[in-house]
């Protein structure tokens, strides 16, 4: 395992982590630690877990954190390692550090307010400004964030509407090749209201079963964070897991059994809440100017 070429970035990294912890503790969030080695990973169509004996390494702490919310926690956050098999690229490391936070009685747009405040705080504290230079371009983190619905972005940049008629292959390829290249603006960009087929664990918009309350945040062209108004309906959640497992089987992938303890927590009743997952490594890339994820981690995997 090779040590990073330039460990001076570790100073920025450490400062950023301290800021994140301060931000959340100042707002009444408690820091939690949930298991890294787990019996079943969260069912996601395109996320594969590393095996660890008969168990797995977590691909995200989401299901365990939501169980804590169901148990009565109000505001929780966690910073920790997540593992995803086969993800290796300029922006992907098979082990990466994730920040997740959950807030009771909040929806995805409330979580956007949190996220904006967090970004303003971290950038001011770590680089002394909310003006950023990244990949040769200037970005103003504050005060205005651009916001596109998925429907608008696809109509504008790819010429079709995935909400009216969803095509999973075309959706993914166009996102990589036509949409994301348009999201590198001189301010942060939010892509929101995903087709329900791409909703993952987000609840549908009230009165619109075709669209889910999910957003993704892009800064400097990097996909930085994902948020949901969390799905808390156990019937709907079970149905989505079943569909996902079936699709994984058809793709020849390990279908993973359902996390029964998570489902029973939903059945006992979970308050409405919002959640965000934010890639710490990519945040450090923005703060340090690095264009490869390997440059911001102490060791290259």
């Amino acid at each position, binding site marked *: 395992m090779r040590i990073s070429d330039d460990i001076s970035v570790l100073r920025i990294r450490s400062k950023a982590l301290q800021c994140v912890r301060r931000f959340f503790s100042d707002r009444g969030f408690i820091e939690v630690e949930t298991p890294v080695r787990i019996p079943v990973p969260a069912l*996601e*169509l*395109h*996320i594969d877990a590393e095996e660890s004996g008969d168990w797995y390494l977590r691909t995200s702490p989401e299901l365990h954190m939501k169980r804590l919310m169901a148990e009565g926690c109000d505001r929780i956050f966690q910073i920790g390692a997540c593992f995803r098999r*086969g*993800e*290796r*690229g*300029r*922006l*992907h490391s098979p082990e990466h550090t994730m920040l997740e936070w959950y807030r009771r009685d909040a929806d995805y747009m409330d979580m956007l307010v949190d996220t904006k405040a967090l970004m303003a705080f971290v950038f001011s504290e770590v680089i002394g400004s909310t003006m950023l230079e990244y990949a040769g371009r200037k970005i103003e983190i504050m005060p205005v964030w651009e916001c596109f619905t998925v429907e608008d972005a696809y109509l504008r940049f790819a010429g079709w509407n995935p909400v009216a008629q969803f095509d*999973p*292959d075309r*959706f*993914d*390829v166009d*996102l*990589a*090749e036509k*949409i*994301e290249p348009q999201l590198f603006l001189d301010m942060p960009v939010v*892509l929101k209201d995903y087709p329900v087929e*791409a909703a*993952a664990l987000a609840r549908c918009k009230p009165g619109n079963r075709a669209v889910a309350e999910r957003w*993704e945040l892009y800064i400097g062209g990097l*996909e930085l964070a*994902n948020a949901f108004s969390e799905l808390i309906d156990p019937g709907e959640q079970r149905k989505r897991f079943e569909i996902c497992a079936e699709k994984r089987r058809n*793709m020849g992938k390990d279908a993973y059994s359902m996390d029964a303890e998570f489902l029973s927590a939903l059945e006992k009743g979970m308050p409405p809440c919002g959640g965000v997952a934010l890639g710490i490594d990519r945040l450090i890339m923005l703060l340090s100017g690095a264009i490869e994820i390997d440059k911001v981690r102490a060791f290259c995997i």
Partner: protein
Amino acid sequence: MYSASDLRKGLKVEVDGVPYIITEFNFMKPGKGQAVYNCRLKNMITGATLSKTYRSNDKIDAPQIGQKTLKYSYQEADHYVFMDDNYEQILISAEVLGESRFFLVEDISVDVLFHNDSPVEAVLPNFVDKKIIYTEPGARGNTSTNVQKPATLEGGYEIQVPLFVNQGDIIRIDTRTGKYADRASRK
């Protein structure tokens, strides 16, 4: 047959019956979607390039590549003539040889990769010796290897050499980098 997750820089693949080598490779995986692999491919026969995007479930053909060791004979216009063990002549184009055509020396053994019957890649020995046909005299007394000057090899290739190397010397070249390695013998 490869799956998309096998793709990487330097891998040889086959598209519509033509062998390609991957020269650039980007792993993309936006927003919980499937992985998208964006590749730049170079045609191993003509050198032409193209972009191709693969998705995680795509299967990619592996080219059937054979190998033969040939001896280099001589150059004929745009082609280079090699001989196999049965003294059959095989022509290899300048495109396939690339830079290494400048380092060919009569009778050296070259490992040639074939796709069907077409040569697609030639691998020279790591080091070859060639004569300098022109270089300016170096400053007297300067034996530093850090300072370099241009020199022309037999066959016309220009290379950077240390100042102490003279016209008529034979130098050793690292064919993997195309750079000067050592002086083989003085004039």
